[in-house]
C-alpha cells in the first residue's frame, strides 16, 4: 500500500502551461485544453453510440418484418423512386465531404474557407430535404401512407422502376403493405429530423465561425458537429439500399 509521503505525487497534467495563459474556451474544471478536447470527443462518440442504438431499434423492426413478410418489401419498394434516393445519397456524400473540409479549415485556421464549407454543407442538407419533400408529397397524394392511413389512390399506383418485370407485380397487392410504409416513414422521418437537428448545429457553428471563434487551437465544436453529420450521413447510406434497392 502507498504511504502518504510517497503518494503526494498528485495528478497534475498540464501544470506547466497553466500559469502563462488561460485559454479562452477552457472550462474551469479542466486542467488543460487537451483534457477538455479529449472529454468532448469521448462524449461525442458516446452520444453517437446512443444515436446508433436509437436507430438500431428501427433497423430491428425492419429486419423482423422483412424476414416475416418478405413479399411486402419486394412489392412495396417499387413505389420508392430509386433515382431520387440515389441523388439524395450523392447529395449527402457531398455534404459529408464539405463538412470534412470545413473541419480541416478550422484546424488550419482558415476562417474564410470554414465559412464557405459550412455554408455549402448547409445547402446540400437543404437540397436533401427538398428532394425528400418531393418524395413525401408524391406519396401523400398517392395515399401511400403508414399502415393506419394506407389508402392507395388507384391512378397513382404506378411503379417507379422502369423495367417491365417489376411493373407486372403491381397487379397483386399483398396484405399489410402499409407496414412497409410505416417503417419507411419511421426510418426516413427520424433521419430527416436528425438532418434538421444537424442543420441547426451547423448554423450554430457557422455563426461562431463568422464571429471568428475557431482556430487551430480551438476547433472542437466544428469537429464534433462534423462527427455527428458523418453519422447522419452514414445512417442514410444504410437506409438507401435497405428501402430503395430491394430484390
Amino acid at each position: 500500500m502507498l504511504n502518504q509521503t510517497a503518494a503526494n505525487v498528485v495528478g497534475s497534467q498540464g501544470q506547466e502551461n497553466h500559469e502563462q495563459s488561460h485559454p479562452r474556451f477552457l472550462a474551469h474544471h479542466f486542467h488543460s485544453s487537451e483534457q477538455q478536447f479529449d472529454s468532448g470527443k469521448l462524449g461525442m462518440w458516446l452520444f453517437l453510440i446512443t444515436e446508433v442504438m436509437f436507430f438500431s431499434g428501427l433497423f430491428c423492426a425492419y429486419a423482423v418484418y422483412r424476414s416475416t413478410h418478405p413479399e411486402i418489401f419486394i412489392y412495396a419498394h417499387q413505389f420508392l423512386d430509386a433515382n431520387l434516393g440515389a441523388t439524395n445519397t450523392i447529395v449527402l456524400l457531398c455534404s459529408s465531404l464539405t463538412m470534412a473540409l470545413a473541419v480541416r479549415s478550422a484546424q488550419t485556421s482558415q476562417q474564410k474557407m470554414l465559412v464557405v464549407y459550412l455554408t455549402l454543407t448547409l445547402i446540400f442538407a437543404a437540397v436533401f430535404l427538398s428532394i425528400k419533400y418531393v418524395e413525401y408529397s408524391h406519396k401523400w397524394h398517392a395515399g401511400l401512407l403508414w399502415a393506419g392511413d394506407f389508402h392507395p389512390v388507384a391512378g397513382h399506383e404506378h411503379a417507379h422502376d422502369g423495367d417491365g418485370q417489376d411493373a407486372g407485380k403491381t397487379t397483386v397487392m399483398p396484405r399489410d403493405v402499409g407496414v412497409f410504409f410505416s417503417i419507411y416513414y419511421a426510418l426516413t422521418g427520424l433521419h430527416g429530423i436528425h438532418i434538421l437537428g444537424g442543420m441547426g448545429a451547423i448554423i450554430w457553428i457557422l455563426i461562431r465561425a463568422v464571429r471568428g471563434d475557431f482556430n487551430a487551437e480551438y476547433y472542437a465544436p466544428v469537429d464534433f458537429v462534423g462527427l455527428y453529420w458523418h453519422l447522419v450521413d452514414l445512417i442514410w447510406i444504410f437506409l438507401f439500399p435497405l428501402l430503395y434497392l430491394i430484390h
Partner: protein
Amino acid sequence: MSVLQMETESAAVNERPSAENYLNCSHGFWSWAATRDHKRIAIMYLISVLGAFLLGGIFAILIRMELWTPQRTIMDHDTYNHTFTLHGAVMTFLFIIPSIPAAWGNFVLPVMLGAKDVAFPKMNLASYYLWVGGALFLLAAIVLGGLDTGWTFYTPYSTTTNSSVITASIGVFILGFSSIFTGLNFIVTMHTMRPVWMTWFRMPLFLWSLYATSIIQVLATPVLGITLTLLVAERALGIGIFDPKLGGDPVLFQHFFWFYSHPAVYIMILPAMGIISEIISVFSRKPIFGYRFVAYSSIAIALLGFLVWGHHMFTSGQSRISAIVFSALTFSVSIPSGIKVFNWLATMYRGSIILTTPMCYALSFIFLFTIGGLTGLFLGALATDIHLHDTYFVVAHFHYVMMGGTLVSFIAGLFYWWPKMTGRMYSEFWGRLGCFGVFAAFNLTFFPQFILGARGMPRRYYNYPPEFQLYHQISTVGAFLLGASLFVAAFTLIHSLFRGRKAPANPWGAASLEWQTSSPPPLHNFESDPCAGDPYDLDSQIYDPDLSGYRFRVESERLHSTNDSAI
C-alpha cells in the same frame, strides 16, 4: 494543476477558507437553479427523487389499502388500475432509475476522483432539468386522464386504452434523455478526469459500479426512446408496427421494451451494490475482499444483462428455443451477483465490525438482496416460471431486489454520505432504530407475497379470492409500518440539520478521496490536491479525538495497533 490559483481565489473570497463550502459560497434562488456545481445538482436531484419516492409511496399505500378486503375497499376498478400503474411508473422512472446515479453518483463521483466537477457540468444541469420536464409530463398524464396501462405499456392495450398514454410516453422519453446525459457524463469523467496516479484498479468500487451502470444507460436507454416513439406514433397516427390488425406484432413491443427495461434493472441494482461494497469495507475496517472480482463482476453483470430480456416473456408465445436460451443466460447473470455477496462476507471475516447506521442498512441489504436474488432462481427456471409468472411471487421478488436492494442501499448511502453532504452528524440511535423498522416492516410487507404468488394470486388484481385475505392484510400492515419507519429515518436526518453536531472531515475513517476534504466540501471540492492512495487502505486512517473524526496515520503510528478506538 491550479493549486496556486485555487488557493488565491479562495483566500480572496474569504479570509477563512475552511469555513466556506459549496452550500454557503453563494446564495439566492438562481445560485441553485442555474448552478453547475455537481454537488448542488446532486442535492437538487436528491430532493426531487425523494419527492417522487414520496408520491410513489402514497400510491403504494393506496394500493395496499384497497387490497385490505377481497372486494372494493376504498376505490373502484379503474382507480385501482391507475394507482398501480402510477406507482410503478413513478417509482421506476422517477425514483429508482435516477436515484443512486443521479443523487449519489453526482455528489460523490468527482470528489472520489479528486476532480473539481464532472466533465460536462452544463449537461449535468440539463440532465436535471430534463428529469424535471419528464416528471412534469408524467404528472400531467396523471391529471389529464391518468394512466392505466401498467408501467410496462404493453401493446395493444396501451394503444387502445383511453388514458393519456402519449403524455406519459413523452415524459418517459424525456426522462430517458436525462438518464443518458448522466451516464455519458460519468463515463467521460471517469475516463478523462482521473488523476494520473489513480489507475482503473485504484478506483473505489462505487465508481466501477457507476461505470457499469453508465454503460447500460448509454446503450440501452435509446432503445426505450425509439420504442416509446413508435408507441406514440402508433397511437397518434396508427403506424401499425405493433398493431395486429394492420399486420404488426404486439409481442415485438415486449421485446423492445424489455431490451431496455431488463438492463434497467441493473441500472438500479449495480450502483446499489457499489455503495454496499464501500460501506462493508469501511465498517469492517478492512480492504474489500477480492477487489478485482467485485469490479469485474459489475462489468459482467452489465454486459450479461443485455442478453436476458426474454425471461420476461416465457409465457408470451416466443419460440421454445429462445425461451431456453434466455433461461440459460439468465442463470449466468446470477453468478457475478453471487460473487459479490460472497466477497462482502469475506470482507467482514476477521474484520473489526462497527454497527453504524449505514452498516446496519448494508447488512439489511445483504439479507434482503439474498432473498431477492435466490427467488430469482425460481423465475429463471422455465418450468417454475410458467406457474409463477405474473403472480405476486414476481411482485415480491422484484420488490426484494428493487426496494430491499436499491432503496435500502440508497438510504445506506444517505446515512453514509450525509455528514459529507450537510456537515452534520445524526443520532445513531434513531438511525439504527429506523433501519431496524425498515428491515422488519419490509419483510412483513413482502414476504407474504411470495406465498400469495405461489398459491396462484395474479398481480394487478383488484378483486381476489377471500382465502388470500390474511396474507394481503399482513402485507398491508407491513406497508404502513414501512412507511412509518421511513419517516423515522427521514426525521433522524432532518433533526440532524438543526441539532446535529458538526461533522468532521472523516467521521468513518474511510480512505477514499471524498473523506479527505472538509465536510461539507468547498465549491471546488479540495482546498489542496488530495493525497494519492489506495481507497481501501483503511489502516492509513486513525481516530483523532481532537477532531472527533479520523485523520491520516503518520509513519510512527503505523503498525502499532490495528485497533482504532471506538467512535
